[in-house]
């Protein structure tokens, strides 16, 4: 008998229009824990990494963890694991809300989606019943309307829905899978894979239970963790300003990428900061399931913004509240595009949610296009409108056009790498492995450069958040300008974060607690007597398995690279003026610490040590 895990999964064959129940591989569950770990293991064992991401042979895995759906703070998460259309690498995109707990209560740890539907379908899971239903009427609809329609059709008010919007259907390479309307498995184009499979949505309702092995120990452990989390005042800061509280902090350090990384400070940062949002547009904080932090923002357009930035796809009431914007979104749609109007950012962000796109890649791709435009590489005849940095009109308009692949939006929909290469300026793509950078300039924060370069799913801030020591001073203070010690801390953060991702909890827990606080909760819930070292080792095992997958997919050490601008063009102004990223000083040491060859391949000894040979 498994505890924490439900021990079952759903296998959905869209080509045959079949759903089957399967037992979870218990040995894998123990070794890879769950969530990101077990999802990666299944993908590794079942799929040829060389297939095209849009091929029916690509698999789309939704994996929750053993702590998902328990009372442990922030136990709301699931991971979408597949081959990413943006990167060609393995991707693991995480989301919260209440969809994953609902899946657990229905009785499943995972859903594995295979094949391709002849006609659009959606999956309906209600406890032991699972069926594929016609989604013809829903195709083309936004995420919000899709949710409302499915809920009406099913007549089950309490169901939770994960869906794609038009962006996923149109295979926008950074399309997201949205659940509970506003929560996103955002990056690398997981929504485009779902679209290519012809799967519009997965609705879930569960009335069952998540059982734990040692109930009393579980309640004690989760309560201790929660108390510690509540006592960490950064948690209070998160409640007050959300992630957007970082906007001013990063800008003051001169590490806020602006105008496609041409600058590292944004003059209008204050106007798009968490402080400004809280004063002018914030209505409420919102939590994901079981979350005791509540970083989510519910806000709205300011009165003066209601009639600005005309939206053509569908009329909508801009007085309605909506979620966001978060720091990353406000940075990409804001500073990176030079846009300093929160209303434009808010509308673009709502559209990204409803149309089902990753706002980071959207903003960053548009920023690259704006640079091409301002440099005269592309002109209005191609773009259909002025694409100047700072234009809120261009921002909102291009978000819509991208999701629908209309006009120049069709170019943006390919992501910044393909788009800049098409116009002969691949050097203006700011990212790694085809995925655009998030909101920290790696020239001003050296460790982030290594983290971006070595992230298995392309540039990502969530794989090794060295901003924590380098800017926020936790758990130790490290100089962001130095490279010394960064390889070691990057590896450690990667392993810890990966282990955390496997539990089904949220990475934001670590603003207040560490993996050591989470460890006893996992042991009590599962009844598996992991030592703390076992748990860290599981993180390392998963990281290396992702790496092996990427190597089999054809990626090499050459893909652990930063763009020329980051390595050679110094930041022109501000506190970090004159800095470039010195990746070369860190990467070799990182490979050594990982037990990898200079070509970035895990050694035989390392694989044996991790049980991967």
């Amino acid at each position, binding site marked *: 008998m498994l505890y924490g895990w439900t021990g079952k999964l759903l296998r959905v064959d869209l080509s045959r229009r079949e759903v089957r129940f399967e037992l979870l591989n218990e040995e894998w569950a123990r070794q890879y824990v769950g969530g990101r770990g077990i999802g990666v293991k299944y993908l590794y064992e079942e799929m040829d990494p060389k297939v095209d991401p849009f091929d029916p042979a690509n698999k789309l895995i939704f994996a929750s963890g053993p702590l998902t759906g328990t009372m442990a703070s922030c136990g709301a998460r699931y991971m979408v694991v597949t081959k990413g259309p943006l990167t060609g690498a393995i991707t693991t995109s995480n989301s919260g809300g209440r969809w994953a707990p609902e899946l657990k209560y229905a009785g499943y740890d995972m859903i594995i989606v295979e094949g391709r539907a002849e006609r659009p379908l959606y999956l309906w899971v209600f406890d032991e019943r699972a069926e594929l239903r016609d989604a013809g009427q829903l195709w083309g609809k936004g995420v919000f309307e899709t949710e409302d329609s499915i809920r009406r059709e099913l007549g089950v008010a309490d169901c939770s829905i994960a869906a794609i919007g038009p962006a996923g259907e149109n295979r926008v390479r950074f399309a997201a899978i949205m659940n509970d309307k506003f929560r996103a498995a955002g990056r690398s184009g997981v929504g485009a894979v779902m679209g290519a499979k012809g799967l519009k949505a997965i609705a879930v309702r569960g009335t069952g239970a998540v059982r734990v092995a040692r109930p009393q120990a579980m309640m004690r452990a989760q309560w201790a963790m929660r108390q510690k989390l509540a006592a960490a005042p950064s948690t209070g800061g998160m409640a007050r300003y959300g992630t957007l509280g970082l906007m001013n902090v990063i800008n003051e350090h001169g590490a806020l990428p602006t105008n496609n990384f041409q600058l590292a400070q944004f003059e209008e940062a204050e106007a798009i900061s968490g402080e400004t949002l809280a004063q002018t547009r914030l209505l409420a904080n919102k939590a994901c399931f079981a979350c005791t932090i509540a970083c989510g923002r*519910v806000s709205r357009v300011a009165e003066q913004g209601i009639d600005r930035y005309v939206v053509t796809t569908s009329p909508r009431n801009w007085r309605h509240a909506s979620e966001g914007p978060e720091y990353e979104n406000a940075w990409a749609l804001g500073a990176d595009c030079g846009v300093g109007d929160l209303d434009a950012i808010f509308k673009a962000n709502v559209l990204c949610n409803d149309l089902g796109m990753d706002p980071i890649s959207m903003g960053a791709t548009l920023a690259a296009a704006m640079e091409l435009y301002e440099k005269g590489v592309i002109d209005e005849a191609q773009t259909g409108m002025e694409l100047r940095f700072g234009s809120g009109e261009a921002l909102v308009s291009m978000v819509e056009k991208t999701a629908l692949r209309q006009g120049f939006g069709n170019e943006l929909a390919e992501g910044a790498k393909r788009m800049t290469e098409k116009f002969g300026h691949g050097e203006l793509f700011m990212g790694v492995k085809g995925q655009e950078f998030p909101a920290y300039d790696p020239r001003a924060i050296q460790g982030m450069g290594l983290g971006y370069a070595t992230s298995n799913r392309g540039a990502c801030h969530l794989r090794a958040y060295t901003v924590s020591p380098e800017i926020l001073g936790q758990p130790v203070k490290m100089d962001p300008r130095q490279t010394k010690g960064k390889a070691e801390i990057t590896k450690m953060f990667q392993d810890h974060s990966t282990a955390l991702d496997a539990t089904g909890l949220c990475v934001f827990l670590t603003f207040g607690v560490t993996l050591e606080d989470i460890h006893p909760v996992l042991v009590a819930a599962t009844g598996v007597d992991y030592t703390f070292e076992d748990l860290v080792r599981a993180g390392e095992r998963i990281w290396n398995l992702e790496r092996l997958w990427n190597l089999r997919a054809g990626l090499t050490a050459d893909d652990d690279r930063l763009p020329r601008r980051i390595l050679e063009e110094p930041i022109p102004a501000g506190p970090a003026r004159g800095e470039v990223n010195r990746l070369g000083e860190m990467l070799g040491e990182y490979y050594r610490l990982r037990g990898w060859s200079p070509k970035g391949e895990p050694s035989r000894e390392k694989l044996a040590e991790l049980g991967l040979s």
Partner: protein
Amino acid sequence: MKDNGNGLRIIPERCTGCRQCELACAWVQSGTFQPSRSLIRVHVFDEQAAFAPYVCPQCAEAWCLGVCPVNAIDVAADGLAKLVLDEVCVGCKLCVIACPFGTIFYDPSVGKAVKCDLCAGDPACVRACPTRAIEYGPSEAGRWLVDWGRKINEGYVRAVEGG
């Protein structure tokens, strides 16, 4: 019938919609994590930016109590709680039909009605709430329902009329 005593007070402005209260209540009911068994339910109105738990208001003149043909619903000695007496309840569900708030349930696994009994004075939902959106103390039966309605209505009015 007493209309004063210790009861729940729900402060909707503080709720973040996290459902820790549901998890805690379900734990009391079932010893597992199973929100479908919770007697307190969080309602989320996204477009109105309003979320709030909703639970038996422990009516001063309780419909469930009045309608029960076998007098299986009693008033707690020390407070507002209306209690289902398991040994008396015959599972006829009349109370479920009579309750205008939808806060008394039928549990098919035991064939009895089940409702919030305020955890004998130490409500688990109160302890579980991270933002103190549920308090326990002297209160008038169902007084919080007024705040609850106002909060949801404000969001609606804002969405329709602006301001």
